[in-house]
């Protein structure tokens, strides 16, 4: 038996791992090999010292120290099950951002295996909950913080998109309409504040999603909020896909959300009154649905027989705008007197109205929608 082999026996002996036979062999070796005997003595002493290391105890109860953290973990767990405690936009928007960040690459590559993982990682109740919280937050902002909301508009719009996208495809039209309404309200606010910083008036047209960008980049210029009705046919496709498989990039998702809402709204009641919102200069700046914009003095929206144009009396002036985009084509200018009797010709080529100034006679006007001229009759 070599000293090397004996070394292993010595080690195992320290752990009581030798059988009787092996222990005898070890003893026989150390009896005549003094080097190994010394080594064994030292190892036994070391082992004894290791055994007698102080059995240290913590200076204070570790469990007591972590109880607050454990409580927090418990409440977070409960929170993640269903309750969304604080529907603050900042918090609510964050998970959404992550959600969208994951959505973007997937929609471009859409590999099935990754999609699977993605679906696994998403807690659908949480997403829906967050979306609901976003809706609440959006309404909250509109009702309580009407000043300075351009930044918030984007977040809210994203939340809206999440709300719309996470809805089941068969969810009712009314739901969509509500979604749209709150989106519109926020948009109105943001456009107003944009105009507050924009004294010069030059007509520019923006898609509604770009409102905030416009405020940042152009600084000046009146902004017309344009409803993307033009996309309607493709929109309904989008909204279905957007709702069932929310894999579209965020911009598309946002568009799909408002589009689908707009589409739903339109399908539901094509001839429903539409409202034109004015800024503080009395300029019409956008067309929106929803009856909450109490500041606007709008009435009598009349759809042309072919449906492409709408006319409305806004603050003492007649406006003609395209029904789908909401683009103002003609502004009659403010008339002294009461405007009434908006009436389209059967071929939609002319719009008639009359102005009655006090006790004076009625003046009849005709708007030619091909030449865009106003003539007195």
């Amino acid at each position, binding site marked *: 038996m070599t000293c090397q082999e004996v070394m*292993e026996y010595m*080690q195992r002996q320290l752990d009581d791992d030798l059988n009787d036979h092996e222990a005898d062999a070890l003893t026989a070796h150390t009896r005549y090999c003094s080097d190994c005997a010394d*080594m064994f003595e030292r190892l036994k002493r070391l082992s004894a010292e*290791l055994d007698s*290391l102080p059995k*240290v*105890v913590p200076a204070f109860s*570790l469990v007591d120290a972590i*109880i607050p953290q454990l409580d927090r973990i418990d409440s977070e767990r409960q929170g993640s099950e269903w309750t969304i405690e604080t529907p603050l936009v900042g918090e609510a928007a964050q998970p959404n951002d992550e959600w969208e960040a994951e959505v973007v690459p997937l929609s471009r590559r859409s590999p099935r295996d990754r999609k699977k993982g993605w679906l696994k990682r998403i807690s659908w109740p949480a997403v829906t909950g967050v979306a609901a919280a976003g809706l609440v937050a959006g309404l909250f902002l509109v009702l309580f913080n009407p000043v300075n909301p351009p930044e918030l508009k984007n977040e809210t719009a994203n939340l809206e998109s999440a709300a719309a996208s996470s809805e089941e495809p068969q969810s009712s039209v009314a739901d969509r309409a509500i979604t749209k309404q709150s989106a519109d309200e926020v948009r109105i606010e943001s456009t107003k504040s944009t105009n507050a910083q924009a004294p010069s008036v030059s007509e520019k047209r923006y898609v509604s999603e770009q409102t905030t960008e416009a405020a940042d980049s152009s600084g000046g210029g009146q902004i017309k909020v344009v409803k993307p009705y033009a996309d309607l046919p493709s929109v309904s496709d989008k909204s279905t896909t957007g709702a069932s498989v929310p894999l579209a990039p965020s911009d598309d998702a946002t568009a799909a959300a408002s589009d689908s809402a707009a589409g739903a709204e339109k399908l539901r009641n094509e001839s429903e009154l539409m409202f034109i919102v004015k800024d503080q200069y009395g300029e019409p700046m956008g067309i929106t649905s929803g009856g909450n914009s109490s500041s606007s003095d709008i009435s009598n929206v009349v759809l042309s027989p072919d449906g492409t144009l709408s006319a409305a009396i806004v603050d003492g002036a007649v406006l003609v705008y395209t029904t789908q985009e909401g683009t103002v084509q003609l502004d009659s200018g403010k008339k002294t007197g009461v405007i009434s009797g908006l009436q389209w010709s059967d071929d939609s080529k002319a719009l008639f109205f009359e102005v009655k100034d006090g006790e004076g006679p009625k003046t009849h006007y005709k708007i030619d929608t091909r030449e865009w001229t106003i003539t007195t009759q």
Partner: protein
Amino acid sequence: MVEPSLIRAAQSGDRDALITLLREIETHVYRTAYYILNNEQDAMDAAQEALIRIYTKISSYEEKAQFKTWIQRIVTNICIDKFRRNKPTVSIEEHELVFREKSSVEEDVMSTYVADDIRKAIDMLPEHHRAVVVLRYLQDFSYNEIADSLDLPLNTVKSYLFRARQQLQTLLHEYQRGGVRG
């Protein structure tokens, strides 16, 4: 030794049982952390982290493993992570340099603690060797229990333990002969 009934109660969502269980094991958890990290404050942090992890993961414990090895696996993993973070990777030359500087700085302080020689020697072992020694001597674990806790093959556990003892023995022998410390 934690009662199996207490573990089951804790797993079924009985928070009081889980807290009681944590109180029973906190000293064991702390002791391992203390000897692996060789520092009271780090040991406190690591032990608390381990207890929190046990609290959140208790439902993932399966009875086919021993509860004490399950606990020690959690705490040793945390300690080894911490250990690696505290001692960022250095080349072998730098490593030795650090040791020399450290020992000369600590000489004055440590000379009064001759009894701490063995702890200082443990502190010089590689992380897994250290963990094996700690489980063997502070937790009285068998080879198999150490293997379960550290997720290492049995033969690896033995060779780590034997090599660690050999190295400790050499270091302490040098100390006792008044040789170079640390």
